């Protein structure tokens, strides 16, 4: 099973997947060899405790080390909001999260993990968020690559997704931005920095509502390095809680970050922020410029909303929305230009501060998806994680550019793919060497004809030379001979005819051994040719050509040659 996520939009049973699809009835463990989690976002791992503890699954769960570390924090946070704040019953408990995490097996990048006798999995770097991975799943010679979410353009803290040319039978790729080609991120970054810089230089305060993990770290790094470069002293704050814990893990998993952070970490770990400090509620009223990262990202509740209310009245201040806002949230309202907001208790908040929008998203765009498909060279592509209409466009493009079949199944739909698996056959060394010696240049990567006997014995295939096969099977060799009569118009004696045949063949077949035997017959390799007078017509001689099955090629060539007749003797 690939990923075990949840739907953010629902608060009832629909938020978790219906696992009875898998089993109908019976235990999940019997049906699933393993579960693979690509990264820690809740839409990829949110249902994990429910699945393993409440539905019941005891098999292994594979994920990368950073995901293993950060995933429980997010699950716990999610549980708190659902149970403690909304008061939901029938939800997984903290203990369930712990129990579930005990079943997790962590994998390293490019490490091949043997799940059982047949199944093996391997993780590739995917960008997107810390610890995100793509997985190659392989059984025998057949393989599937599942990308999870990935990003083909590097950002301030993560590198780009990369996969080798593994030629899987199927590539399952996300297609969030199936119809988008994005602009260079440099412009976005520059705009962002310029706006923040200008505002703090004016003495204004900047509020950046973010979600605790992922983009927040990227923006922190961005601001931190900018502050460092420009020698700025204005304080930057980060609202506490979840983030501190997460930042700790970001510090630990340096190997998963981009080149710059990996290179400079010997001097200084980039996630040990020099300029970014923990936020305290009281700081919001401090005079002078400051930059604050506050959760949640859509300004719908919590600290970010509180700070927003305090600062909204001053036109020197600025709020920068770094991501998408759902309809109905304060974030969406101000982005669509509303300047007067009705808050609870009928009071009206006038927004004088500047409102900016800046998209920092970490999914591959259409070009990126195509690039990954090009890198992996799959036989089939399957699109998931996107909107049907947009996927349709991308599907056409993939089929057109790469000439591979592409599928986009709806939920619950089954796709059947034809594959042509390789069947390994053992070949005896003697046979191989013999065939090698016969060939001239080793023509590489091209199929080559080989004579031998295929022996199938208890699901084990072997290719051996026919002599050995006979010996092994205890069979006697049968000789199969073809004989053919060729009529020649020749009035001379048999011996002379044979001699003429001999000289003719000798001159045409230069690289074969042609012999004239004392008994008057002619041999070409092992092919025997005898000349006899025709019983009725003395002017016609009958040539008897006889060859074994092994010499079929040469034999038929000879008969064809002889049927054309002999050249006129010079005499």
């Amino acid at each position, binding site marked *: 099973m690939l990923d075990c996520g949840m739907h953010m939009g629902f608060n009832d049973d629909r938020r978790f997947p219906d696992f009875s699809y898998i089993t109908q009835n019976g235990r999940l463990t019997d049906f699933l060899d393993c579960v693979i989690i690509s990264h820690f976002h809740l839409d990829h791992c949110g249902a994990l405790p429910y699945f393993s503890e409440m539905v019941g699954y005891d098999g292994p769960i594979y994920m990368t080390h950073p995901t293993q570390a950060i995933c429980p924090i997010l699950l716990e946070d999610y549980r708190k909001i659902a149970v403690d704040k909304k008061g939901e019953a029938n939800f997984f408990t903290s203990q369930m999260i712990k129990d579930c995490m005990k079943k997790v097996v962590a994998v390293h990048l490019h490490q091949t993990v043997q799940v059982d006798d047949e199944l093996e999995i391997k993780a590739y770097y995917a960008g997107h968020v810390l610890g995100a991975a793509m997985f190659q799943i392989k059984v025998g010679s057949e393989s599937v690559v599942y990308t999870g979410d990935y990003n083909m353009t590097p950002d301030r803290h993560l590198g780009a997704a990369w996969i080798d040319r593994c030629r899987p039978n199927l590539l399952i790729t996300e297609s969030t931005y199936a119809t988008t*080609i994005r602009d260079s991120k440099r412009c976005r970054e520059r705009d962002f920095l310029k706006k923040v810089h200008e505002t703090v230089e004016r003495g204004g305060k900047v509020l950046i509502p973010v979600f605790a993990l992922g983009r927040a770290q990227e923006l922190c790094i961005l601001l931190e390095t900018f502050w460092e470069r420009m020698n700025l002293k204005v304080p930057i704050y980060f609202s506490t809680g979840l983030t501190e814990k997460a930042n700790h893990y970001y510090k630990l998993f340096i190997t998963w970050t981009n080149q710059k952070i990996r290179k400079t970490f010997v001097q200084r770990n980039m996630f040990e922020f020099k300029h970014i400090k923990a936020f305290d509620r009281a700081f919001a009223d401090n005079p002078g410029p400051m930059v604050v990262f506050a959760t949640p990202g859509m300004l719908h509740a919590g600290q970010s909303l509180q700070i927003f209310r305090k600062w909204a009245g001053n036109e020197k201040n600025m709020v920068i929305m770094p991501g998408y806002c759902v309809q109905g949230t304060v974030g969406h309202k101000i982005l669509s230009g509303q300047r007067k907001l009705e808050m609870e208790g009928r009071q009206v908040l006038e927004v004088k501060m500047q409102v900016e*929008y800046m998209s920092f998203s970490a999914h591959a765009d259409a070009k990126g998806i195509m690039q990954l498909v*090009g890198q992996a060279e799959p036989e089939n592509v399957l699109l998931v994680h996107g909107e049907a209409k947009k996927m349709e466009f991308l599907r056409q493009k993939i089929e057109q550019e790469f000439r591979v079949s592409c599928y986009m199944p709806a939920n619950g739909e089954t796709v059947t793919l034809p594959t042509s698996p390789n069947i390994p056959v053992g070949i005896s060394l003697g046979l191989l060497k013999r065939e090698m010696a016969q060939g001239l240049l080793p023509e590489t990567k091209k199929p080559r004809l080989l004579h031998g006997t295929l022996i199938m014995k208890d699901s084990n295939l072997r290719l051996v030379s026919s002599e050995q096969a006979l010996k092994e099977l205890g069979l006697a060799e049968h000789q199969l001979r073809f004989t053919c009569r060729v009529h020649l118009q020749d009035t001379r004696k048999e011996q002379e005819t044979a001699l003429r045949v001999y000289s003719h063949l000798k001159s045409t077949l230069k690289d074969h051994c042609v012999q004239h035997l004392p008994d008057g017959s002619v041999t070409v390799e092992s092919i025997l040719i005898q000349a006899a007078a025709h019983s009725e017509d003395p002017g016609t001689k009958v040539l008897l050509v006889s060859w074994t099955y092994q010499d079929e090629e040469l034999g038929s060539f000879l008969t064809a040659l002889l049927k054309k007749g002999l050249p006129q003797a010079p005499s």
Partner: protein
Amino acid sequence: MAAHLKKRVYEEFTKVVQQQQEEIATKKLRLTKPSKSAALHIDLCKATSPADALQYLLQFARKPVEAESVEGVVRILLEHYYKENDPSVRLKIASLLGLLSKTAGFSPDCIMDDAINILQNEKSHQVLAQLLDTLLAIGTKLPENQAIQSRLVDVACKHLTDTSHGVRNKCLQLLGNLGSLEKSVTKDAEGLTARDVQKIIGDYFSDQDPRVRTAAIKAMLQLHERGLKLHQAIYNQACKLLADDYEQVRSAAVQLIWVISQLYPESIVPIPSSNEEIRLVDDAFGKICHMVSDGSWVVRVQAAKLLGSMEQVSSHFLEQTLDKKLMSDLRRKRTAHERAKELYSSGEFSSGRKWGDDAPKEEIDTGAVNLIESGACGAFVHGLEDEMYEVRIAAVEALCMLAQSSPSFAEKCLDFLVDMFNDEIEEVRLQSIHTMRKISNNITLREDQLDTVLAVLEDSSRDIREALHELLCCTNVSTKEGIHLALVELLKNLSKYPTDRDSIWKCLKYLGSRHPTLVLPLVPELLSIHPFFDTAEPDMDDPAYIAVLVLIFNAAKTCPTMPALFSDHTFRHYAYLRDSLSHLVPALRLPGRKLVSSSVSPNITPHEDPSQQFLQQSLERVYSLQHLDPQGAQELLEFTIRDLQRLGELQSELAGVADFSATYLRCQLLLIKALQEKLWNVAAPLYLKQSDLASAAAKQIMEETYKMEFMYSGVENKQVVIIHHMRLQAKALQLIVTARTTRGVDPLFEMCEKFLQEVDFFQRCFIADLPHLQDSFVDKLLDLMPRLMTSKPAEVVKILQTMLRQSTFLHLPLPEQIHKASATIIEPAGESDNPLRFTSGLVVALDVDATLEHVQDPQSTVKVQVLYPDGQAQMIHPKPADFRNPGPGRYRLITQVYLSHTAWTEPCQVEVRLLLAYNSNARIPKSPWIEGGEGSPQVETSIEGTIPFSKPVKVYIMPKPARR
């Protein structure tokens, strides 16, 4: 056959031994050194096991072999080769054969037959590969011999079908290095033997082993390098290799495609799946562009680098590289660059962005969108956004080269370069700033671009800021607002980083002189001139005010209407700055005033000649010296030295020569003075004080000669001889003085010995120059050398003394170009009154920033010295990476010096200065024997002495006692 061979080997071997015996008879010296080949033979015969033999061979390989004995050694090796069963020993022998055939002065054609012979009987693949390598070494040694070459090529072709990739690799290498195309042309008539090397190599493009494929491509590139013209047919083969699974193959293939595109830029190739045809160079460009988004970064770097040198590519292909069609939900979107441009042209300047400002516009036809362009689309957009900074740097470099050749492309790539100013890696930022500077002739910055550029001025890295200043020096700005913006940002920079003062002033100087008409309307505002009221006179020492004035005065130079706007104090300030900062403020034609410095205005060239003449004349006057009486000579020397020093101060171009000659004359003066001391006539013990004077003189002459030898760049061998000669005289003087003041013979004996060694050394080093030293001290000394060798110290001293007095004054020929090395410490400035406090026993890092001029190889010679008040001196070797090279002859040292000391009671000053380390032994030519040997080059980093060449700077420090 084998027996015959063996016999021949033995014959040759015995012959060699005989030769050695003859040698032994004639030259007795060689007796001590056993013959190499004989020793090896004995060793190898002693070896009982292959491991032993291998050990002997390894030992043998460590020592070099003289050219004469190579052949003998080779014979012995071959003999053992035939006997040896162990492949590893054979391998080593084969590799030794290769090494030996590379020996200079040895012609390896004689061993080629044997090498080819053993090649035919060899079974081990590794040994085969090694033997082919040996043949390659032989072949490259004999490039003229066509017969050998073709024979080797035959051998290589025969072994191409070997099953081992190593052997095939070597064969291809051999073909690449030796195969020639001419053969197929000249011997066409013979038909059968004519072979096309390119065809043979090309067949291996599809080998099953990636290493062999790579080797095949490399061989092809090698052929190209050797000047053979590759066939165009290879292009298609190479294009197929671009999709190879292995990165080294792809990387080599990219190179090959580039080579072919340079060879046949104009030929036409069809586009697959359509009827159109395009130029080959365009097609290749598209293909290489595609490789910029390859999976392996090695290939990406390679591709990005090569793009830069494809200048023949058509402009619309070139411009595609910067084009990435944006879309959002299948609707066309404009890039931020396009939006910025539009905003600018519509007159509205960078308004805040609204939600949906970048809302997509028109619908796109789904069929028309091409997600994977086979062409060049967006190659640079990808390259500049790459994950690895190596790729980004390569892309920036390529962008630079292409922009230099195409102004329209330069205009287009500007936005992208400006974006790179915000890269996360400093190297990339720096590189893009430099690139921008290089193409600045072709471009004019828009205001919004300038804005982004200027934002980088606040960067905390000094290199970046200075690079940016240099960029601003040569940019074109389009509007007066732009100039104003630049000035404001530069002043901001100045207040934030006061150390940038000089660089900013220089930048404003060029900015002013480039844009006089744009500065003109800004003058009233900048000088805060009010039409009715007199404004307060600004502070003359304010660096920001000086910066503004530098801008205005330089603009005024070509804008005669500007001075009319100046107020009185501005004129006063002009006069002051013209004097104090004459390199920044030009001479102006001011109304109602005399041209302040018309005499020193542009044409200095006619002035040069008289001063040159003066220099020559005064030197010639001195060289006629020996005829004058000592008193007159001294006076003349003194005056000339004074003249030269003054000349050096006045004429900066002649400073080097003048100083150099003055130093030499000073040495001579000191020598004359020392020789005239009365002490020579009196009994030694009475005049200890006088002898002090003489020995001090000797010491000073030594110092000065070291300075002359090592502190000037452009000193030639002629001068070095004279300098060494002077030093020899100083040493002689020292010897005499010591002889007169010390009692006892033993120390003197040693000194004499040493001095004579020095003389011998001098003779060996400068044997070619001795004829020029007619009648000099050393000339006479060498005449008397046999006598000196045998005589007693006292006698030697006496001879030396008379010779010193008699010797003539050598003429010092002036070198063409000579510059004195100099250094200025910019930081620490030495003005601080606040001591640097640190806990004793720990270290404190002191930033040192200095400019070095005319220093040769500063990485190894320049050291930092710290002098503590207690007399303790510490020498610090800066890292090679601390030196930057901003221009020819100029270096910048930015390093950190660690200070530490035990606790002091009160703060005190330490002195920091720069030293030039020298080692006069480095000039000794190395004996060829050592050069021939492989490995173990003697590291000559030892420092013989140092010369301080910068003014010391005082730093106030205070080590506090550690608190318990």
